[in-house]
């Protein structure tokens, strides 16, 4: 039924006549020319920005497909968004911001959403968007590596005896540099039994700690002087 309505709408639009069935959904008339229009995808300076955009755009699409039937303007919007999704995932693939197979799955889903929305295939859009969301979810927080500073070091801040961030994602198999900034006035001992480091970080100062190379896995670290609060995990991936 949906498909039938959709094709009716398409025929109606193609011929420049508004179909009664979709008149309420369509906010502004979309001509055939507009529908196949190509958009400019946004560009992203960093992989973090790209990932953020990927998530933000997915959220928007998720809102749109809550509707029982996608209107032409919805599909058009999704199609427009897909250009940005493409530049985002291209950026992440170029920068290897994740495992190849996971990025590949996202790329495939983005392409499929792109074509399905272009052809106004409601069901296809929904199917592939679900795959896209699932693929992004596997990427989220697990594979994306934490940012490093200009020196290529990972930074941790201790404030009120807590670590920020309390999760670090670092590459496995290579030595990494960790800079711990203690912004509390009191000293803390940065320690990990898992990756075998202990270092006292005096109050209001920073310490550099070399870690690894580590095997892939989850490594606990903590502040020995505040075991109840100062805890975090380092993921080597």
């Amino acid at each position: 039924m949906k498909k039938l309505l959709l094709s009716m709408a398409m025929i109606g639009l193609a011929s420049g006549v508004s179909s009664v069935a979709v008149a309420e959904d369509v906010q502004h008339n979309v001509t055939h020319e507009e529908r196949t229009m190509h958009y400019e995808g946004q560009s992203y300076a960093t992989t973090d920005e790209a990932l953020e955009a990927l998530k933000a755009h997915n959220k928007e699409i998720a809102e749109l497909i809550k509707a029982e039937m996608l209107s032409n303007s919805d599909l058009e919007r999704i199609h427009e968004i897909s250009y940005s999704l493409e530049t985002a995932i291209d950026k992440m693939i170029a920068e290897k911001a994740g495992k190849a197979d996971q990025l590949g799955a996202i790329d495939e889903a983005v392409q499929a959403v792109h074509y399905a929305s272009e052809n106004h295939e409601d069901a296809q859009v929904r199917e592939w968007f679900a795959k896209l969301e699932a693929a992004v979810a596997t990427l989220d927080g697990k594979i994306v590596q934490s940012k490093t500073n200009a020196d290529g070091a990972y930074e941790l801040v201790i404030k009120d005896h807590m670590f920020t961030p309390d999760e670090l994602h670092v590459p496995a198999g290579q030595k990494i540099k960790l800079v711990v900034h203690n912004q509390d006035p009191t000293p803390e001992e940065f320690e990990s039994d898992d990756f075998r480091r202990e270092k006292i970080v005096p109050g209001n100062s920073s310490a550099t700690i070399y870690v690894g190379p580590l095997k892939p896995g989850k490594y606990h670290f903590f502040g020995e002087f505040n075991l109840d609060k100062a805890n975090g995990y380092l993921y080597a991936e």
Partner: protein
Amino acid sequence: MFPTATIVFREIIEVALVVSIVLAATRGMPSRIHLVLAGLGVGVFGSVVIAFFTDAISQAIDGIGQEIFNAGVMFIAVGFLSWTVIWMKTHGRQLAQNIKAVGADVMAGDKSAYVLVGVVALATFREGAEIALFTYGMTASGAFPLSAIVMGGILGTIGGAAIGLMLYMGLLKAAQKHLFSITGWMLIVLTAGMAAQGANFLIAAGVLPPLHPEVWDTSALISGQSFIGETLRVLVGYTPRPTGMELVFYGTVLLGVGTAYKRVGKPVSSHRKALPLVAAE
């Protein structure tokens, strides 16, 4: 009170385990109690000084001062402990057999017994400095009243010392006959563990390569953070994820000091038998 008690207990226990084995191993050595107490005194004083200069130590040598310092403490302790083990092997028999009078003779002119002061002081430095820094932080943060921190410290110390005393008494009881060889080997294994820890500090400083990032992983079996894991770390140098370099250091010290320990102090007669008959004498 409890955070202080817990942390002080954790640190004191490390010192107590080392000291109790040293005490058991040096049984019969005259005035060893005094030497150990002197070592503790030097250790406590040194800890406070180290804690005070933590900032300067940390910043030294391009930020790896702390690792180098810790490695240094470890390796000097390895040297002193090895010395103690060998010394006891060569003098232990006499000391055990001939009670005080001869003991004094053995000691006379032999300043090496002062090594014992060094052993205990070095075992105290790192943990002591940690306690000093921790209690300073607790006091400065004002989260707990001073009395609670002091009480916690006392409780932790008593608890840690009690474990040490238990080990000491246990060793004397269980190992009556072979006390020297048992405690001797315990010290050798403990020393090897210290050498591995020292190596780990040098790896952390980037001075030594790890050789192999993780030769095995037994963290699921005995976590390094558990009570058993920590105790085993002090006693036998247990670490759930050793690097290749640590094993090299461990093996070298175990083999080196172990071989020396077996060789020295053997009855002279057996030595002669092993030698080919030499005419010239």
